[in-house]
């Protein structure tokens, strides 16, 4: 049981998907201008990533592996992720139209979010079993959400900072993200694999 916990902590803090593996940067930059949208996006991404890593594990181990079609993994994973995202989009559109409007283009864009496809493929390469891939997917999503929400709170404060003109907007956001990943370096070695 403890190694599941370590895996979770490792994925959330030590090799955080956004600040250490630098995956999923475009929604990280795009959605983080306001905290509510960031929180909305975090829930959507967590839902998608956990479901996608689950489904991709099942599809891979029970359909592709027996038939020897390993070379199709990437394509089927993209198909799975697209379906999950489409499904999430409908749910979000139905449940809270406000959030749907706030997220705008970034909701369908989760399909192309490299963190989502990344988690599916990394599950494959590190031969995670069923339970581990769910934990891994969930951990990656929690890491993504944690950093995204913290970053959105910072950007809301930065919006009024007297930043020199060329650096206004996404330039200063990039620098802040850089400093954040500098801070996340502190976690290296926290969990011994």
């Amino acid at each position, binding site marked *: 049981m403890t190694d599941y916990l370590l895996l979770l902590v490792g994925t959330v803090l030590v090799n955080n998907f956004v600040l250490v593996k630098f995956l999923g940067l475009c929604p990280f930059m795009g959605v983080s201008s306001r905290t509510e949208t960031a929180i909305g996006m975090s829930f959507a991404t967590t839902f998608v990533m956990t479901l996608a890593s689950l489904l991709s594990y099942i599809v891979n181990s029970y359909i592709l592996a027996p038939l020897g079609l390993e070379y199709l993994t990437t394509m089927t994973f993209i198909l799975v992720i697209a379906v999950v995202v489409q499904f999430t989009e409908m749910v979000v559109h139905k449940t809270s139209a406000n959030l749907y409007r706030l997220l705008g283009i970034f909701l369908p864009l989760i399909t192309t979010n490299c963190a989502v496809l990344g988690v599916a493929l990394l599950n494959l390469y590190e031969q995670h079993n069923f339970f581990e891939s769910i934990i891994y997917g969930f951990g990656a999503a929690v890491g993504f959400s944690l950093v995204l929400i913290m970053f959105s709170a*910072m950007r809301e404060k930065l919006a009024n900072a007297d930043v020199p003109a060329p650096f206004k907007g996404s330039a200063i956001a990039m620098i802040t993200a850089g400093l954040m990943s500098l801070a996340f370096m*502190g976690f290296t070695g926290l969990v011994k694999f």
Partner: protein
Amino acid sequence: MAFWIASSPHNHQQNETSSLMRLVIYATIPGIFAQWYFFGWGNLIHIFLAVAAAIIAEFTVLSLRNKKIKPQLFDGSAILTAVLLGISLPALAPWWISVIGSVFAIALVKQLYGGLGHNPFNPAMAAYVMLLISFPLQMTQWQPPLSLLAMDIQLTDTLAVIFSGYTPQGYSVEQIRTHIDGFTMATPLDTLKTNMTLGLTVVESMQAPTIGKHFGLGWEWINAGFLLGGLFLLSKKAIPWSTPVSFLLSLFVCSFIAFMISPDSNASTMFHWFTGATMLGAFFILTDPVSGATSVKGRLIFGALAGLLVFLIRKFGGYPDAVAFAVLLCNMAAPLIDQYTRPRTYGHDLGVKK
């Protein structure tokens, strides 16, 4: 005769930001004195280099952004950042370490976000972390206390080492750091971490010469010096009480629980309090109002989170002294903490719906 119009309130308490900053700088003097006394001139030189670089950097950036130079340059914030950076660097690190660190702190972490009051990260700690990750070798050449050194090094030797890497007699920094019986000395935290990985128990590793008896070698004195400075600031109400208290308390609780669980593999709470940069972090860095949380409840959470992170990284992490990382991580969380720890306004949510 003409009148002038000003908006109320018309009179004003006489303390100012710059006097606040100067107060904090004066409070670091006991710590610096202890450092000078036990470790020689190294840190003083670094502080001097850092302050000079900081002022030049601030001057250039302010003139580039054609802001009013005089009030902003000498309001003490840049000097304070440089002093903190100078204190936290290894004594014998090369000169360009503190110059690069100071310029990075002032130009990038502070001025790029809009100068005083706008920077989300503490400039000194951001610079320290950047240096630690970019120049691991130079940043881990900690100078052992003077009493343990094979040969005593004077001001001229330290100057030569810092600027040229070799003492006039030709010894390199490595040679200076090697103990008489051949092993290179490091900070207590460093020795503890290396011994832990080697499987020694805490009691055995405490015998190592580098740690010395309680308050024997000077590491503890430096933290005591900063503790003294911190209490002076608290008495002057220059810094809020909530952050240092919650930080030290949470560190105490974490280390105490760990110590209770397995005394062999965990250092005592006093050890955690008085080694590394704990006291410096508690009173001078975490209480930086600009990058910290604002409300009292927010500061309590901020300090507690920092204490927990310091303990986690010290116990499990790869880096021996994690105060710098913990500060940066808490600075990142500060805006989020602020959003959720706003105090209840007078007359609001009293349960009675108006």
